[in-house]
């Protein structure tokens, strides 16, 4: 299988192309660019928190802007576009179609990302990634806040367009000889996450407009001074964004479903269980949004309902872990870079889920909510699971896209350093949360435990930072000068271990 190896072309030919692998390449480069930009902001945050007192970021306002743009960037400009990159490259091939269903729409969806990203970065808002009213209405400085709202609006539309395209490509364009039960799990992951997007995003799209008109003073949906209710926003936001966390994680799981069987040289333990877990998660994922709102003054009954909804989604996630472990069991595992990232990602996925269960249990959440515990919890997903799955998959795609091999030793060094760094940062942050340190604070009192744990976290972050520099150097050097890859089987694992059929596309 070759992912579009062509003679080097001028960049504008790729930019104006609507072919799925060209659009995929644009998504890939954009998302990695934002990974490094957003990562740099994270290092600034960690450096600032190394000690109490102002360190490198002079004032609280700048700090608040930095963590807001950090979170917004990595979720909307790294994780989502990276998944779209992989989907663009693989989904048409997997369903044996010549391109995405709507190639022009596909290019448009991509080209909405740079302006969306530019609005967020040029504005540099300070109201956190959930823009909570009434702060975001009466207190947050413009035009940054308004630019953020417009930026998210554009990125949301891009997501919806991309989702429509994936759903139609998979359901309507798959080869007539192929049943839906033969579509590889990676493509299934895009089908499920796209369906979630289509149901979830419109709610936030509406909330964003209401926020904007509230800011303009012409409405008061969320503004108590005008008879509105900020809690209404919290419901609308989390109705979109709890399901959205599954939108983020499901494609990464799908990527692991490509890597794990291949490098274990065994078929997937249970294809049906993988499909079932994806579908189940997409449905049950809608029953838990208000677990983010236990401390807003909800009644006991409401809290109970959302706790049950949250716990009900856990078995679906746990099924994936079982499927991966059972696939590796007795396999002839080849621990090359992509496999290391996937296995590391699964271990962190499991830990993250365990922490999530603690958050979901109502009385425990009053200890963890809005402390560093929560920061640790979701970073084990977004960094530990999603970025790990994505980076591993990037190494895996690399020879197919560039025709050259990356440096394997450096790939492993990158993994080991990132894994150690991730454990140091995010496990420590769980404990820091138990000691009561609130999130989103620019400075903290000199409590000895807080200082010690912040320092461990900062050291961990710097280790990740160094490993990412190694990654960048490896990719830049290898894409031009790496040794030529055998594109039929670059990893020497054979090719027939994973699908019920051979994925081949006559037009590639």
């Amino acid at each position, binding site marked *: 299988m070759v992912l579009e190896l062509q003679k080097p072309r001028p960049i504008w030919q790729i930019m104006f192309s609507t072919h799925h692998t060209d659009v995929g390449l644009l998504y890939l480069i954009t998302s990695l660019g934002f990974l490094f930009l957003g990562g740099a902001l994270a290092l600034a945050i960690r450096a600032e928190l190394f000690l109490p007192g102002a360190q490198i970021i002079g004032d*609280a306002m700048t700090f*608040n802007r930095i963590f807001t743009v950090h979170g917004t960037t990595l979720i909307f400009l790294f994780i989502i576009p990276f998944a779209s990159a992989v989907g663009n490259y693989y989904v048409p091939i997997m369903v044996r179609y010549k391109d995405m269903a709507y190639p022009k729409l596909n290019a448009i969806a991509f080209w909405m990302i740079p302006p969306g990203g530019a609005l967020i970065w040029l504005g540099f808002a*300070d*109201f956190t990634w959930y823009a*909570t009213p*009434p*702060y975001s209405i*009466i*207190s*947050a400085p413009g035009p940054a806040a308004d630019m953020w709202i417009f930026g998210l609006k554009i990125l949301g539309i891009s997501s919806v367009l991309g989702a429509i395209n994936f759903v139609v490509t998979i359901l309507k364009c798959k080869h007539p000889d192929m049943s839906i039960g033969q579509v590889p799990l990676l493509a299934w992951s895009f089908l499920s996450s796209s369906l979630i997007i289509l149901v979830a995003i419109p709610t936030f799209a509406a909330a964003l407009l209401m926020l904007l008109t509230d800011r303009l003073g012409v409405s008061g949906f969320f503004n*108590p*001074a005008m008879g509105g*209710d*900020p*809690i209404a926003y919290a419901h609308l936001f989390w109705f979109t964004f709890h399901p959205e966390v599954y939108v983020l994680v499901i494609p990464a799981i799908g990527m692991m479903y490509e890597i794990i069987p291949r490098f274990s040289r065994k*078929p997937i*333990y*249970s*294809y*049906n*269980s993988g499909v079932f877990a994806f579908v189940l998660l997409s449905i049950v994922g809608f029953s838990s949004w208000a677990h983010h709102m236990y*401390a*807003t*003054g909800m009644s*006991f009954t409401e*809290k*109970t309902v959302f*706790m*049950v909804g949250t*716990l*009900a989604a*856990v*078995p679906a996630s*746990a*099924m994936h872990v*079982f*499927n991966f472990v*059972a696939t590796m069991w007795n396999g002839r595992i080849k621990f090359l870079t992509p496999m290391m990232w996937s296995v590391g990602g699964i271990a962190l996925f499991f830990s993250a889920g365990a922490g999530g*269960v603690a958050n*979901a*249990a*109502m*009385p*425990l959440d*009053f*200890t963890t*909510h*809005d*402390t560093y515990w929560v920061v640790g919890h979701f970073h084990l997903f977004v960094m530990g699971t999603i970025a790990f799955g994505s980076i591993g998959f990037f190494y895996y795609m690399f020879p197919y896209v560039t025709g050259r091999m990356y440096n394997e030793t450096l790939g492993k060094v990158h993994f080991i350093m990132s894994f150690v760094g991730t454990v140091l940062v995010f496990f420590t942050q769980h404990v820091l949360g138990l*000691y*009561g340190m*609130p*999130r*989103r*604070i*620019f*400075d*903290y*009192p000199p409590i000895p435990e807080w200082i010690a744990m912040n320092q461990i976290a900062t050291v961990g972050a710097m280790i990740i930072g160094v490993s990412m520099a190694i990654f960048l150097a490896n990719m830049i050097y290898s894409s031009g000068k790496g040794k030529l890859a055998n594109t039929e089987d670059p990893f020497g694992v054979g090719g027939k271990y994973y699908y*019920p059929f051979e994925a081949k596309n006559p037009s590639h």
Partner: protein
Amino acid sequence: MGGHSNWPEWIYIGVVVALMVWVGAEAWEAERLVEHVPEDAETIIVTGQQWFWTFEHEDGTKEIGELHVEVGKAYKFEIVSTDVNHSFNIHDYVVLMDAIPGRVNTVWFAPTDAGTHDIQCREYCGLIHYNMRGTLIVEEPHS
């Protein structure tokens, strides 16, 4: 998609489901007990505003940034905000409740030992959120 049997996965799912039921049941029971406010609890009105806390006791006395209470009594906090969202937190006593403009949220606690504890804001509220702190002073009973 071989013809292998799936019973290990069913057992595993059974274990996970059982664990979730157990966590849910324990959490439900614990939360039900903690939420039951004692009849004789004294009310303290807690006002959050950018970026400090004000406390008003039943007898009308007001304190800013410091809250004095006595061992052996139960207190019910009525938490309000005059501007944006905040979250009133005494971490050592697992007291946490958002202060939301337009609403009155309640939470209660009963201090057990004399001593001082940190009060902090745990919901992002802007520029000085990081320093929206206070002190809880628990004293021996006065009489």
